[in-house]
């Protein structure tokens, strides 16, 4: 009996300066298989479909539960997480490529540190006085928690940035993820103390006005974060802040 197989085409690039090549793989199908388990299979037996020895594929991964945000890549052209990409739901051959908007490291691994730099620039934190015991935090009603919690679910996968037509070197746009974090921290009773600074950080070049309302971000987000709502809310606040700053001279 012939075993059922799964066909992959993976874009390989040994380093940022090397040429990109496509390699084909043919793996034995197993129930419940996903893109990560397929790459683990390749690592244990790094041979291409035409029988040539190759190297294990380099890619980022960690939790494999779609909560650490590591394994984002383009799967059949779509930016998504590899761990939750079940083979049975994908058209074959399954084409794997690295995210295209970030500096390539090797194969499917890219450098996404720009997001963490952006979070630094907008001061995405609550400036607590200290870690010693200062009693309980501010009261937060469940209705408010239910607004903040989804924003706090952002896993920094950068899918929203990958699919955004405005996210490129020319605009220097910070991208949807960072803007949603601005909303989250501005919403927090203590975090709000830095609200003006965050809004000003989004007021200039690469800030919120670069958004072209393509709405790709909200569709690509694996966590269904209401990104477009966050962008419009923060956009309004940035305008108000600009007006205030102008009046103050």
């Amino acid at each position, binding site marked *: 009996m012939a075993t059922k197989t799964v066909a992959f085409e993976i874009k390989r690039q040994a380093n940022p300066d090397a040429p990109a090549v496509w390699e084909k793989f043919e793996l034995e199908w197993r129930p419940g298989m996903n893109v990560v*388990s397929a790459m683990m299979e390749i*690592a244990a037996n790094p041979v291409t479909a035409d029988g040539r020895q190759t190297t294990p594929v380099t890619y980022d991964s960690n*939790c494999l*539960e779609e909560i650490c945000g590591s394994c984002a890549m383009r799967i059949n052209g779509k930016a998504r997480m590899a761990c939750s990409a079940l083979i049975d739901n994908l058209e074959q051959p399954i084409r794997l490529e690295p995210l295209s908007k970030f500096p390539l490291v*090797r194969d499917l691994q890219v450098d996404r540190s720009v997001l963490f730099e952006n979070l630094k620039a907008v001061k995405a934190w*609550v400036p607590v006085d200290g870690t010693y*015991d200062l009693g309980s935090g501010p009261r937060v009603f*469940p209705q408010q928690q239910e607004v903040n919690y989804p924003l706090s679910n952002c896993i920094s996968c950068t899918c929203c940035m990958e699919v955004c037509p405005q996210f490129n070197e020319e605009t220097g746009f910070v991208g949807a993820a960072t803007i949603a974090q601005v909303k989250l921290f501005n919403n927090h009773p203590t975090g709000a103390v830095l609200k003006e600074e965050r809004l000003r950080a989004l007021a200039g070049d690469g800030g919120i006005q670069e958004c072209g309302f393509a709405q790709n971000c909200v569709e690509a987000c694996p966590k269904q974060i209401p990104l477009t709502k966050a962008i419009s809310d923060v956009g309004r606040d940035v305008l108000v802040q600009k007006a205030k700053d102008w009046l103050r001279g």
Partner: protein
Amino acid sequence: MAAPRIIVVGGGLAGLAAVIKIAEAGGTVDLFSIVPVKRSHSVCAQGGINAAKNLKGEGDTTDKHFDDTIYGGDFLANQTPVKAMCEAAPAIIDLLDRMGVPFNRTPEGLLDFRRFGGTLYNRTAFAGATTGQQLLYALDEQVRRYEAEGRVKKYEGWEFLSAVLDSKGQARGITALDLRTMELKSFAADAIILATGGIGAIFGKSTNSVVCTGSAQSAIFQQGAYYANGELIQVHPTTIPGEDKLRLMSESARGEGGRVWVPRKPGDKRPIKQIPEAERFYFLEEWYPKYGNLVPRDVATRAIHKVVYEEGLGIDGQPMVYLDLTHIDRETLNRKLEGILEIYEKFVGDDPRDVPMKIFPGMHYTMGGLWVDFNQMTNIPGVFAAGECEYQYHGANRLGANSLLSCIFAGFHSGPNALEYAKNLPAAEGDGGHGAELARQAELNGKLLKNEGTENPFRLWRELGQTMTEHATVIRYNKGLKLADEKIVELLERYKKVNLSDRSQWANTSFAFARQLKNMLELSRTVALGALLRDESRGAHYKPDFPERNDEKFLKTTKASFTGDIAGPRFEYEEVDTQYIKPRPRSYGAAK
């Protein structure tokens, strides 16, 4: 004297907690992590964090939390640090709340609490079903703030290889590998804190993340640190079996009313909804009427094993039982458990709001780890450890929602202690051992890259995982444990013929993995042999041939030290601090 320099290795909850305390005290920190710290394994913790805040009018106290933790751990934990942790817990929750963790709330705007296994109190604060993620982010944000101020320098994408020890055996820094450029480098420090998490990878598939190999702990163990209670491995009762890993189904599913059952009739073919209540075997509720579905993890795991393997009642004859939430309304489920229900939906394809989940126990947590003193320091001066990588807080079994607490508490504790130690450290003689350690690591790297042979490291790893899961998890027999150790010795021998299919010097994951694998193999022996020597049953450690707890012989901490000899690690035993609560029999059939 220059300000002390501290290196923290690992950016999960424990590592970040340590960094924050050091930075706050005016110190500077170099933080090393394989992955960007925001992607650390702490994000996977789902259910919550324990603290006896007593906000439900139940009369809960930190003393009761202390007692539950000691009793749940079957009296193997040293009581002084556990007591301190439970007493510190309420203030830790307040701090996290102030940092902006979106904890679930009561209508009045106060923190909400749920009930977890091994207690009768609503003691677990939670943020939906992604509490670990939310806690990690809160600490990550505070560290980013210190990073922006220049107090913290992150080395993300670097893997710890070893400690640099001077001629007196004191820590003077670390060696690490840049996983992108493959550059080997040593970094100076006056003290180092390892917060390198769990060891799931030595069991092949587990609930742990890819980076949880235990490689760092093993490296420091091979440099002379004691590894304590390695045999105490927690198998989580409810995981979702998968091709690449076992995905956790949080205890909070049972905390919110989830019921575990199997059809009373073996291989019952009827659709689930047509199986009447009377023909469902709610075995945890029947066997443990007081705690029901919320017995501690070791008890639930063994009960599921028994139902499946001894009574032959697994669903469709498979090793699986139902975890049923379908009697709870969708709105409540979405509000309290959405994150974990989505995981099930996404990775299995069924909606657990409509169909009971199919689950089975899977390796989840190591109670054992690096031996540390009450200041979190290992027996190597200047090497501290905090979090899952050390052994101190959970005895022979960890209670649900105590891990996030122990990570943060131990991190907070280790940071200032490391700083204090470093302040009193005399200057190093010569280069403090940096040259020699760099040379040793360079030799190891060079040899591995050039090694000729036929063994694929990923396939050796699979064999290790299979043998460890078979012999060293839920039920242990001495015969099986001996087989496991023989297998590890065989794998160590075959490792000498390991052949990298990738010899490049750029982002070479096979190379990094092969280095980890050697360390995994060495550490596995402490688990298998530690278990072999502990001829009793206690907490998660269960031997049918020795079904009783034996306090006279084994109310003791196992301490393994590395010998480099084929015979394996050397074992010795240390008295347990039981000064507050006298050991008593542990049983969850009735109130304790």
